[in-house]
């Protein structure tokens, strides 16, 4: 319990610190304020607080190194309670009362969509760190920029991975009825015939499902080469375990995405299975800064970071580069133009950061194989596949409305 209490205390302390501090090097100068509206309570608490933990590392680094244009970077962290109306109210407050230069923060697509409408209407630059719903960068988007690749693209990437490792493979899909999973599967279903893959079972579970034994048996009876598993929350683990119980091999299971707690949940019995990710301690391409971030995050939080924390770590650096390119921290339109023209790389892994005309990023994905899982403390993975693609290589905005 001590570890958990420490984790909680440090998360609260991090959030409080991000709210209140302007580190020493740039103190005195007027801070550059950015509204960070994220999930500190509600169903997405874990993602929001993990995100803030990553954000704080980068903010401290930047401010200790002199800030941005000689001014400290200040993220005003605000709780959206995982609610769209609360996110909208917080955005309005940050815009009108705090006069923030830009918005950022949500890790839930539903919440991000509410902020998207406000940002586009008010011409307020909005950098979304972790939300994958494609419509966040639908055609005509001007002020919103998304760091995470869109979810339909993840489905595309999975099809390309399977096409490479087993041409003509038979694939079963098991997923929850949630916006994220529907988008992933829509991308996969679109790409599967083009990659000469055969979908032999396609099962969707409503939210709140607790058992998948019967469906696991149906999938086993269909004798697939691979099963793509994407359950909401803990149900992902339920499906995985029940497939393994029925004799599906770990090597046959592919998870579209995996964060640290998910890998811990899958556990040692999932060694050999594959998961998609955008950042992981097991990447071949980690930069020295990436390795340093992982070590420091692990020491502070008793677990390695996943792509959620990484994207929130990367966010302040993207703002820094864009503000410096704009040459001012007081002009939203110039910041928007600088973000649009940005051509840089992630500090932690070196992957490119380039936004298209709609604010969607040049997309990419890693596929990792689980090598070992050490309880709830650590795991090892091996990079098996890396792919980059143009955001509109498949018709993402038609596939997912």
């Amino acid at each position: 319990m001590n570890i958990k209490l420490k984790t909680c205390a440090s998360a609260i302390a991090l959030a409080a610190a991000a709210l209140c501090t302007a580190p020493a090097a740039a103190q005195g100068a007027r801070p550059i304020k950015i509204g960070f509206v994220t999930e500190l309570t509600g169903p997405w608490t874990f993602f929001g607080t993990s995100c803030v933990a990553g954000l704080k590392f980068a903010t401290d680094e930047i401010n200790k190194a002199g800030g941005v244009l000689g001014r400290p970077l200040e993220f005003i962290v605000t709780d959206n309670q995982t609610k769209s109306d609360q996110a909208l109210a917080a955005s309005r407050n940050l815009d009108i009362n705090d006069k923030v230069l830009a918005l950022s923060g949500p890790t839930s697509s539903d919440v991000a969509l509410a902020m998207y409408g406000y940002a586009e209407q008010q011409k307020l630059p909005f950098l979304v760190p972790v939300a994958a719903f494609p419509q966040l960068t639908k055609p005509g988007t001007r002020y919103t920029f998304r760091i995470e690749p869109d979810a339909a693209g993840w489905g595309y990437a999975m099809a390309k991975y399977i096409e490479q490792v087993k041409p003509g493979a038979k694939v079963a899909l098991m997923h929850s009825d949630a916006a994220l999973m529907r988008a992933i599967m829509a991308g996969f279903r679109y790409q599967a015939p083009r990659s000469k893959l055969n979908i032999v079972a396609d099962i969707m579970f409503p939210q709140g499902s607790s058992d998948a034994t019967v469906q696991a048996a149906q999938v086993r009876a269909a004798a697939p080469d691979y099963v793509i598993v994407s359950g909401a929350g803990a149900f992902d683990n339920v499906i995985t375990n029940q497939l393994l119980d029925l004799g599906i091999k770990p090597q046959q299971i592919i998870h579209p995405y995996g964060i640290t707690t998910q890998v811990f949940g899958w556990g040692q019995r999932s060694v050999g299975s594959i998961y998609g990710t955008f950042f992981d301690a097991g990447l071949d391409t980690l930069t020295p800064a990436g390795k340093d971030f992982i070590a420091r995050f692990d020491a502070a939080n008793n677990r390695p970071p996943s792509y959620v924390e990484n994207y929130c770590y990367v966010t302040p650096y993207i703002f820094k580069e864009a503000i410096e390119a704009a040459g001012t921290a007081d002009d939203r339109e110039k910041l928007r133009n600088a973000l649009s023209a940005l051509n840089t790389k992630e500090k932690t892994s070196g992957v490119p950061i380039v936004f298209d005309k709609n604010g969607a990023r040049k997309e990419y994905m890693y596929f990792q194989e689980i090598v070992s899982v050490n309880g709830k403390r650590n795991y090892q993975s091996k990079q098996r596949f890396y792919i980059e693609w143009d955001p509109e290589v498949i018709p993402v905005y038609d596939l997912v409305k």
Partner: protein
Amino acid sequence: MTDAQILILMSTLSTGLILGAIFALVAAGVTIVYGCVWLPNASNGQFFLLASLAAWTFTASFGWTSLAAAAGVLILGTALSYLLEWILIRRLYDTPNRNVAYFVVTLGLTQIMTGIFSLTYAKWSDQFTLPPVIEGITMFGPFPMPNNRLVVMAVSLLVLVLLFVLLRYHPYGRALRAVFQNREAAALRGVNVRAIYRLSFVLGSVIIFLGGILFALAYSYDLTVAWTMSITAFAIMIIGGPGSVIGALVVGMTFGFTQAIVSIFASPTAATFSYLGAMLIILLFRPSGLFKR
């Protein structure tokens, strides 16, 4: 039958039995409290979740085995139930229309517990799992059944049978049923009504805690399970008949098997509302539930 058909049949049976037994157990806890104390416990889902999360804390943070964690949670749950009864529940025993007052009070408890979980467990993880009580699998033809789930199923059914025997044949059970039926008459016959209320609240709550532990042993779970279980337990109680343990058992099992069967022939989505549809139809014909007391 082919192996594939046997596999699907056996998976349907096992799912129906495990889900049904856990549903029935939690509904039995809810129905005992409501039938006796007239307390519609809106926080039953949070009690269920509290037990699951406490068991997770004991295993993940203290390194206890799942069996020791289960025992620890049951001891703590019993103490907590007594404390809650002493501080809060007994103050409303003689309030007119106390079912409404109890509903509001337990709704408040739900909000408080939801807030606490959100500030604590929700920050520590997005999903929770307990290690199995027992490793290994048992083969039923081509169907491999994890021994851990067999234990969960056996314990759930055993507790339901014990509960039925207790309420049917033990003096406490007879007194409890007397209070169910007529509080004043029971008091005139020498039954200590307030003591029966207290025992019923504690027994019902501990059964819900046990349901939470068993669920956590059989499945991974997250914080949303509280809401799902709360709705399901109330639905089972209403259809089975408030106060009827046999009603909870029969309807709980029916819910479990309905979910399993409909999810094969239609879809898992249809399965989730199929039993609620069945509930509405039954209530049209039997407004007091199938096993009216």
